[in-house]
């Protein structure tokens, strides 16, 4: 069986995050259907960030879906809307009924059920569906960008989209360099 490649993730460096919320704004705009924030606000488009900068112990930590490989949300979903596909955990909104089981099982608080349309009072449906970080697949396809909107927006480059293969290679090289240097000085016979 050929190995399945790990899902890419958004990696955040809390030491560089200044909690400016630019990534949240960018996420909301990228999923709003508008071109920019001013336009989206003027047109009253839905602006929901799928990420959240969280402040803990004096540090800011940008949080979003970690694209788990054994994702609890995919198991919990009764309709199959939430599933592994194309190298990420996807929620097919047409299939989502807004039951919030995924919200409850996600260990990272990464999912929110929201409606994107104004629903009349007393209607049969709230039209709410689950939203989470989708790595901006649609936005990237339509804009031709390679990085997700939040990564693009971050003024301090605190967040990045990481391919674990590349990450591992970088780690190995860095450590290899150090170990090689040390071993050069070891002259132990055993």
């Amino acid at each position, binding site marked *: 069986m050929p190995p399945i490649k790990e899902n890419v993730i958004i990696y955040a460096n809390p030491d*560089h*995050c*200044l*909690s*400016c919320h630019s990534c949240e704004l960018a996420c909301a705009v990228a999923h709003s259907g508008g071109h920019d924030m001013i336009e989206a606000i003027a047109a009253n488009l839905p602006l929901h960030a799928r990420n959240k900068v969280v*402040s803990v112990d004096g540090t*800011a930590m940008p949080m979003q879906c970690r694209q788990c490989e054994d994702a609890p949300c995919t198991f919990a979903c009764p309709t199959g809307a939430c599933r592994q596909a194309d190298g990420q955990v996807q929620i097919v909104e047409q299939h989502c009924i807004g039951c919030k089981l995924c919200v409850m099982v996600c260990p990272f608080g990464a999912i929110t059920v929201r409606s994107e349309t104004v629903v009349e009072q007393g209607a049969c449906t709230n039209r709410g569906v689950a939203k989470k970080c989708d790595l901006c697949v649609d936005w990237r396809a339509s804009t031709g960008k390679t990085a997700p909107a939040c990564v693009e927006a971050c*003024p*301090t480059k605190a967040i990045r989209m990481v391919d674990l293969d590349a990450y591992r290679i970088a780690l190995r090289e860095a450590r290899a360099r150090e170990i090689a240097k040390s071993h050069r000085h070891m002259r132990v016979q055993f």
Partner: protein
Amino acid sequence: MTHHDCAHCSSDACATEMLNLAEANSIETAWHRYEKQQPQCGFGSAGLCCRICLKGPCRIDPFGEGPKYGVCGADRDTIVARHLVRMIAAGTAAHSEHGRHIALAMQHISQGELHDYSIRDEAKLYAIAKTLGVATEGRGLLAIVGDLAAITLGDFQNQDYDKPCAWLAASLTPRRVKRLGDLGLLPHNIDASVAQTMSRTHVGCDADPTNLILGGLRVAMADLDGSMLATELSDALFGTPQPVVSAANLGVMKRGAVNIAVNGHNPMLSDIICDVAADLRDEAIAAGAAEGINIIGICCTGHEVMMRHGVPLATNYLSQELPILTGALEAMVVDVQCIMPSLPRIAECFHTQIITTDKHNKISGATHVPFDEHKAVETAKTIIRMAIAAFGRRDPNRVAIPAFKQKSIVGFSAEAVVAALAKVNADDPLKPLVDNVVNGNIQGIVLFVGCNTTKVQQDSAYVDLAKSLAKRNVLVLATGCAAGAFAKAGLMTSEATTQYAGEGLKGVLSAIGTAAGLGGPLPLVMHMGSCVDNSRAVALATALANKLGVDLSDLPLVASAPECMSEKALAIGSWAVTIGLPTHVGSVPPVIGSQIVTKLVTETAKDLVGGYFIVDTDPKSAGDKLYAAIQERRAGLGL
């Protein structure tokens, strides 16, 4: 509202009690809002976000990976400096607008208008006339008032750039006037200084951080001028504060009275409210309030009426929403500055009327009663009657007044301090103070100024620092919300002196207090007034420096604003530095994004003007640094 544990929000027990009540009733206070603001933007905190033109906002990456320049080309140093001096100018504008209000009132009085006001302190008026060189011999009072108003308004009008503001030139030590004059740091006109600060910080103007910061110090000196004239003229108008026993904290509210809080900064209306409250007592009693009318103070308006009428202080800035939560506040009358726009939202949950009075300071949701000095008594009566009417809507089941209040001896104007010293040595009142500084019983003097901020446990930094310095025999003065913190914490009492002062300081305060007939030591912390009244401390320090034949920057005198938050506090801190004082701030101003600006205000300033900023959020180490600065000054004087 999300659950919010406020056990450590404030070191004030009444505030904590009210915050628990707020939590139980899902009422949102400043502390809840602060929580919701987390995480606060790092660019703004560092001063690296520029919003000066529409090409912006531009942000500089402090980590060096992102942009280094704004669109116009401004670098981090330019951006930080521009925004800092704009904040100082805003503070200056606030204090000075208050001053203009008082000066215009004096002018109108001299023209035979404003019949609800009079010169209550003629001795002070003559003293001011002497300072400003106005002839008094054989002249009528109103003519003198007119001249003083004209000279004062001249500080807002003079167009000769090289002629310094009259009040500063007449009030500081000759050496300071010369030194600052040579550096171009003596403003010629308060309004022009503010306007020039706005102008030089417009896109494409002054970009040199050093030049900008010097401009900031110049406009800060205009703040001192505006504060000084506001305080001194208010004394002539309403009386110079003398020691009076009052009380502080929410326990000053009365279940059986119509409680009216005065909040803000300007005494023009609040002083009249205190006067006419007695006239309407019977109306309050008829409405069911057996104890009549109870005026209480909040923030600096509170200090103005506390110093002059002994009106008790309910609370200071950060907890200004909490008196409403007692369910026993009929009205809060506000004038200008540091008034939380949230007040009407909280008052909505109760019967409390929030009444705005200044045409430039309205809050949606509040009732606006326009204040006109020509009808001051009438306005005051209208407001009090609104409060009496509100009393009828009070829900007695919701009344929860904390049982706690502290005795506070307040009202230490420079004149009052000198008068107390004169009881020890009538011929040379300053001598006892000088002698005790020389012999080390008093190591130095610290002036606590400034506000409260949600970034520090309310009042705790003041109390910790004051105790630690008093123990080391440092004489403690305070104004504004710093004074509010000390009053609530019981540090404005003889008992506090006995408990916390070092032996030398205790001896001196006891000797003066006994001689002055207080029946005990002077309080540990001397209440010098509202935040505009910091000039009182400058007056005292100037008298001391002149007596010793030295400059202000030679005295073992330091300032500290451990819980500062307002632009006014930045202006005060900046002039304190400019007149030569080592000045501590405990909440970090937005300058850390620029090493150059940080160095300018914390180091270079020392060579230039003698004073400098000490930025430290830890009260313990800040206390050590302030004490070390005092010792450095003592060594400089050969002590």
